[in-house]
């Protein structure tokens, strides 16, 4: 057993494909670590994941990992069309890199039905990681989403909860082992649950933000405290639908108010070993997810 010298350890980061978000995340998604994206549906978790599997293919000089990626999805169906759309705009913006092949060649997709299936797959994944079926090594694993695997199958009984939390630690342990061995960046998405009642009723505050708000509701991330112990960083994506302005409010034919609503999205650091509490506004457009410079 030899100690490692921290001077020789460098944390490689995978660019998000947007310089503003990269700056916000101090370079991107770190390797050898599990990053969780928490948000209610429609906030851009999957969008960001799709963008990551593309930008991971960029050469290291451009902030990427020069790597292919593995995408587990448990929320059916897989958004193939959106990936296609992002991929074509991605390859047209990097014509020198993707003249001969399609970026989608370096994305391996696999559907997941249950947590046990994921656990079993992780045991068999090593041969895939050592001999990837593509030119580029696999350096990014996305699991979208972990909550869908757990939210249906388990009852709220002590026995089931115990089984569930030991599965959490089993999956996280296997993922972290491979993250370390192969230098993987791991991104996991998670859903939120509504928080009902006062602070004291729930008691557990996780992370820097005293409470998470999305769409005007108070939420907290799904799967509870024991899952929060399994991950290294947690990012929270929120959305607020804002009325764009009074002038734009127009009466429609039936006399109801119809207003122009614009959605404002923010990314917050809930906790991360290397990032302070902060947030960054972002937009989702046709070409992908981009941060907004607020300065």
């Amino acid at each position, binding site marked *: *057993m030899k*100690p*490692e*010298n*921290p*001077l020789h*350890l*460098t*944390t490689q980061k995978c660019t998000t494909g947007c310089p503003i978000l990269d700056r916000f995340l*101090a370079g991107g998604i*770190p390797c*050898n*670590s*599990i990053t969780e994206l928490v948000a209610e549906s429609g906030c851009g978790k999957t969008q960001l994941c799709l963008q990551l599997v593309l930008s991971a293919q960029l050469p290291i000089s451009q902030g990427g990992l020069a790597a292919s990626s593995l995408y587990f999805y448990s929320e059916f169906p897989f958004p193939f069309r959106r990936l296609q759309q992002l991929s074509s705009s991605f390859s047209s913006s990097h014509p020198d890199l993707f003249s001969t092949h399609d970026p989608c060649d370096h994305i391996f997709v696999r559907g997941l039905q249950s947590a046990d299936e994921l656990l079993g797959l992780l045991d068999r994944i090593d041969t895939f990681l050592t001999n990837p079926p593509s030119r580029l090594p696999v350096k990014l694993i996305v699991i979208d989403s972990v909550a869908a695997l757990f939210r249906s199958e388990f009852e709220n009984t*002590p026995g089931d909860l115990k089984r569930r*939390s*030991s599965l959490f*630690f*089993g999956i*996280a*342990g296997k993922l*972290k*082992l491979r*993250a*370390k*061995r192969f230098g993987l960046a791991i991104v996991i998405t998670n859903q939120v649950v509504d928080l009902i009642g006062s602070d004291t009723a729930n*008691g*557990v*505050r*996780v*992370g*820097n933000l*005293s409470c998470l708000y999305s769409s005007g509701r108070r939420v907290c991330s799904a799967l509870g*405290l*024991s899952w*929060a*112990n399994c*991950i*290294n960083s*947690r990012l929270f994506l929120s959305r607020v639908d804002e009325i764009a302005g009074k002038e734009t409010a127009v009466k429609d034919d039936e006399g109801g108010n119809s207003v122009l609503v614009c959605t404002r999205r923010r990314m917050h650091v*809930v*906790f991360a*070993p*290397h990032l*302070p509490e902060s947030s960054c506004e972002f937009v989702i457009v046709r070409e992908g997810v981009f941060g907004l410079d607020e300065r």
Partner: protein
Amino acid sequence: MEVSSLPLSPSQRGKLIAAGYTTLSSLSSVSAPDLARDLNISEHEAIEILKVSSQSSKKIDGCHAIVTGAQTAWDMLYEEEFMTRITTSCADLDNILGGGISCKEVTEIGGVPGIGKTQLGIQLAVNVQIPIDYGGLGGKAVYIDTEGSFMVERVFQVAEACIEDMPYNYPQKDFQARKNKMQPENFLANIFYFRVCSYTEQIALINYLDKFVAENKDVKSVIVDSVTFHFRQDFDDLALRTRLLSGIALKLMKLAKKFSLAVVLLNQVTTKFNEGSYQLTLALGDSWSHACTNRIILYWNGNERYAYIDKSPSLQSASAAYSVTGKGIRDAASHCKRVRIM
């Protein structure tokens, strides 16, 4: 001291007393052949008896008891005055801890994700290296990472800030000259980092630490971040888990004593079902709570982070606010004294 209390066989003791050798001092001047003749035993046996008696009298001279390694409480008190502590860089927290995390002891620190356990661990790994002239220990650190949260860029920031703050805490004239020697790179190089990916590896490493620290004498702190993670996976046999964990705790306690270094174990929290409601408690169960000498719980109080001394043989229960800043662990932002003794 009486001959009867010597660790000898009853027949030998009987012969000694019968021949008039009742006290240890009476044995101190007699030679082996004389003793053999007086007791009517072999010379070899007489040598053995004299050896035992001289060993016992040596211990008495040194003011020590029969059991090797035992100390009087007075000696321990004297030693405690010289006990070194590692500062946490938060004055209030140091205050309730009596100066910082104590060497020679095992301290457990637990809290919810994001409260700053890893930050405190990194801070201690850096602070143990503050030179002795600046009130530090001038030691090195062993960092055992089981979770993968040790980020080098963050350690660099904390080390940089630590060097920057040193002249404010201990103003000295020649700081500029010394500063050139103190570089964040050196602070990083003095952290022995072990990444552990399974509980077997964790146990093996802790067994190996004794040898490692013996070879690297400067190691003054061992930080395990976290002791928990691998022990919450696939453990159906909870009795086995308890045995393994108490083995780890014992080894670390021995290590702390032997090399007078601080052992800091970071722990996670879990919910415990108690009398019809769920309560937050540190993970690994009730038997583990006996394993560590000191126990500090980190928690949120409104928007402030607090540390609470849950268990300590020498410190009062108290809580203090701290904050996690870009520089590392620092005083709570409000800067007013908030130490509360409970």
